[in-house]
């Protein structure tokens, strides 16, 4: 292998930890990422993990980026190779000129190492064996020892790490000193034996600001707490389980009645997804704010109920943390592949509202907004997260809540209104927006009761199988969907600094990679206007954006261009204008990929006539 100059880069590199699942590495790795943040340098951290509890390979990737690029970058500048099983592949994945940190307790043959990288052997196992007699402690502290070694190699502030350890073990003070000791062990050995720091290293900066570091599932769960959800019914399913867990955790702190110690919430781990959504619908029908958290396979199981909620017009919130399909598919890999199955979930003519948050802050906002929308529109609302947003901690603007905000409980006729003789027809459109009034069960002794069924009823909920009332009702539901367009979050548009004929549409977890891709493309002289779609049904802005550009790339993390399909079918847009740009191997999309694909397409167009994709 040709020699390469060692990479030299301050506050801008990628560190990858290769570990064995279940070895306790996750907390040390996260500590590393948080220590970098404490030094004022932004990070983008991602877990790449198997569907397994113990034994299979897992990676943690930390992109250090003072410029603030938070998408996955691809490649690796410094590999901490702690897993013998993947060692050769891990070593091969290091960028030329990069660095390898490995456990040198057992000497490696030079044939397993590369000559174009800097190899740093740290005798981790030997050091741990000498220090701790108990095998379990040796294994756990080994992670802290390599963290110490890294702190020396990258010139990190040891104080930042110590502070974080003290914060992490608050309440378990006994653990603070041994952990700090383990870090020091690694750091001291490295400072003594290895020329420090490396070409890639950290310098204190001020680029993090007031941002927070949190995973999207926890953020969405907190949104549900703030949004007034009182009933959560769920069935364990990766990558959504941590959302229900987080809701329970936040509620146990924030939703306890101070006087009685009793709970102002109910969480049911149901027997399956059918029961989960059934419980949500029952609670929504009876006037409580209720949600479920699931993923694609759960959505498939809930289909019949979702249709009932659409036709019977019952508020419900579903958090879909998307992953690769199918049930026996890629449960721990990310995708945006449930858009179509959620947008048209169930049998009969159905259409549903989807919200598409891009980061934890938006997951919090939409997580709360979804309950207002569900009550206002009396219909299921899907909050479409994915594994990348949901299960990785992201650097995100802090959560904000306006204390003057009131919950919008939608059109609910009260006892007083019924008593005053106000006309009540459960499916009667009195305001012309397609939304009828409902009553909660038990409201009035003689007025406002009705029988809930899917269809087969007239505007006053009286049983009929006549075609006329059926069509009348279906047309009203369409009108309601039009109303939804005016209520859901508008798309966010950002224009290039000069007029351009090219545009790009994207959504969800693609956002950080897209910001960086635009930067890369602009550096190459290519300009694009961009529109981040945040909801379905589409706001008219989406149509306007497409009509203003000759070519619009639609960037998605699925195989079939699902958002593009929705745009074509719902807005009647010409497919030829919409160029699909798709990344769906289960890894998060990168700026390199987007910029490369758009760049190639635009370059190709300079010499060849426009290829009509999809036409």
């Amino acid at each position, binding site marked *: 292998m040709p020699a390469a100059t060692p990479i030299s880069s301050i506050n801008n590199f990628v560190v990858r930890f290769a570990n064995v699942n279940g070895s306790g590495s996750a907390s040390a790795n996260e500590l590393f990422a948080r220590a970098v*943040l404490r030094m004022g340098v932004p990070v983008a951290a991602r877990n790449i993990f198997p569907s397994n509890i113990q034994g299979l390979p897992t990676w943690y990737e930390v992109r250090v980026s003072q410029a603030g690029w938070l998408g996955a970058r691809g490649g690796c500048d410094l590999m901490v190779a702690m897993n013998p099983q993947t060692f050769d592949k891990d070593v091969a994945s290091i960028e030329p000129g990069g660095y390898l940190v490995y456990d040198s307790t057992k000497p490696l043959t030079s044939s397993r190492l590369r000559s174009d990288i800097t190899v740093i052997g740290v005798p981790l196992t030997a050091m741990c064996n000498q220090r701790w007699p108990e095998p379990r402690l040796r294994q756990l502290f080994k992670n802290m020892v390599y963290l110490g070694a890294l702190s020396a190699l990258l010139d990190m502030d040891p104080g930042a790490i110590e502070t974080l350890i003290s914060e992490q073990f608050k309440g378990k003070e006994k653990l603070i000193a041994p952990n700090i000791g383990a870090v020091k062990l690694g750091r001291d050995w490295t400072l003594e034996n290895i020329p420090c720091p490396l070409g890639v290293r950290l310098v204190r900066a001020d680029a993090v600001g*007031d*941002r*927070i*570091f*949190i995973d999207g599932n926890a953020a969405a769960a907190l949104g549900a*707490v*703030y949004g*007034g959800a*009182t*009933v959560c*019914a769920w069935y364990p399913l990766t990558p959504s389980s941590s959302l229900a867990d987080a809701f329970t955790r936040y509620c146990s702190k*924030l*939703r306890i*009645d101070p006087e*009685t110690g*009793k*709970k*102002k919430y*109910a*969480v049911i781990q*149901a*027997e*399956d997804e*059918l*029961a989960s959504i*059934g419980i949500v*619908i*029952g*609670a*929504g*029908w*009876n*006037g*409580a704010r*209720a949600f479920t958290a699931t993923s694609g396979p759960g959505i498939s199981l809930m289909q*019949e*109920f979702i249709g009932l909620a659409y036709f019977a017009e019952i508020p419900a919130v579903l958090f879909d943390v998307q992953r690769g399909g199918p049930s026996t598919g890629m449960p721990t890999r990310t995708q945006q592949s449930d858009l179509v199955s959620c947008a048209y979930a169930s049998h009969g003519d159905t259409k549903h509202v989807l919200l598409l948050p891009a980061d934890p802050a938006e997951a919090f906002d939409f997580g709360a907004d979804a309950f207002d929308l569900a009550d206002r529109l009396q219909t299921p609302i899907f909050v479409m997260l994915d594994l990348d947003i949901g299960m990785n901690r992201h650097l995100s603007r*802090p*959560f*904000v*809540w*306006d*204390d003057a*905000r*009131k*919950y919008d409980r939608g059109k609910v006729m009260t006892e007083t209104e019924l008593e005053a003789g106000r006309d009540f027809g459960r499916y009667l459109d009195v305001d012309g927006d397609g939304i009828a009034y409902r009553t*909660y*069960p*038990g*409201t*009035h*002794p*003689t007025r406002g*009761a*009705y*029988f*809930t*069924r899917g269809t087969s009823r007239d505007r006053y909920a009286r*049983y009929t199988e006549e075609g006329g009332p059926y069509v009348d009702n279906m047309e009203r539901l369409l009108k309601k969907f039009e109303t939804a367009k005016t209520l859901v979050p508008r798309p966010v548009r950002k224009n290039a600094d000069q007029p351009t004929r090219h545009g790009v549409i994207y959504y969800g977890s693609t956002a950080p990679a897209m910001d960086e891709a635009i930067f890369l493309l602009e550096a190459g002289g290519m300009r694009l206007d961009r529109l981040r779609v945040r909801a379905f049904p589409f706001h008219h802005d989406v149509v306007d954006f497409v009509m203003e550009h000759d070519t619009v790339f639609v960037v998605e993390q699925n195989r079939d261009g699902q958002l593009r399909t929705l745009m074509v079918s719902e807005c009647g847009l010409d497919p030829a204008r919409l160029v699909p740009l798709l990344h769906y191997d289960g890894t998060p999309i990168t700026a390199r990929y987007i910029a490369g694909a758009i760049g190639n397409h635009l370059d190709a167009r300079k010499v060849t006539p426009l290829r009509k994709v999809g036409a």
Partner: protein
Amino acid sequence: MTYLAKPKFHHPALPKNALGYTHRDYEGAISTLCAGCGHDSISSAIIEACFELAIAPHRVAKLSGIGCSSKTPTYFLGQSHGFNSVHGRMPSVLTGANLANRELIYLGVSGDGDSASIGFGQFAHAIRRGVRMVYIVENNGVYGLTKGQFSATADRGSKSKRGSVNRDAPIDLVAIALQLGATFVARSFSGDKEQLVPLIKAAIEHEGAAFIDVVSPCIAFNNHAGSTKSFDHVRAHNEAVNRLDFVSPRAPIAVQYAPGTVEIVEQHDGSRIALEKLAADYDVTDRLAAMNYLQTHSALGHIVTGLLYVDREPEDLHRHLDTVEAPLNTLSERDLCPGSEALDVINDGLR
């Protein structure tokens, strides 16, 4: 069924209950089931029970799945909210409704196809969670709306109307409910209103999961010779272990019983069930003995009816979850939203 609408007026001298409601105030729309259907008798038993207990009709929520039995909530308690949900999924919808407002009375009406086949799982889990409800299965052993296929409660050896014989083992929902921890378990017969009405009343007052299996012959598809769910067969094999009189906390026991023949079971809310023992050795508070009795007598071909098990100190789902007394659907942002200050603290903890 009849197509003649019920007149709206009624006789001014109709008896009124403690709340001033007449029997008519508990009725619903006219039944569209076949004339003579056992289910209609159950509907009228429900009406009778609610009238006698003087329940405000709008404080009941009636939920059902799909099938003939699940159509019946339209035919009683017209002033109550009803929910005809999806096949076999009434228990989960009822569970959610109960979580949202613990103050209403939840009446789940289901059938043997709905609860023993497609909804067997939901039936089991709602029972084992102890959702406070009255769960009535109108059990006729066949799928009526789809014209007479066997259901999972059809007995082995029972003959269908077309002459085929059921070879599969039956599911006895009463046995399952006992095993899963239901705190009130009963079986009755749609043709025995005397027995059914007090059972429904006691179940309504019970503060836990109450299950009543009501054998309800299908007049159209399962009332022939060779069927074990026909009127004749059930009458011939009915073995009632007790006769009960239900007394709500608000009324004294009026009937005088011969000493030694009656057991008074006091429920947690103070209501009392006066049990006239027909099987001398039957103890309604012994779950294991009930299961044993049921198995032994079912092997003899008997249909054991009556109050089969009651737990005097039941616990329900809300107690397990330790939820607040106020219905969750009445809590406002003031109760539920932690506010911006708490959020700032959370933000700080994430830096």
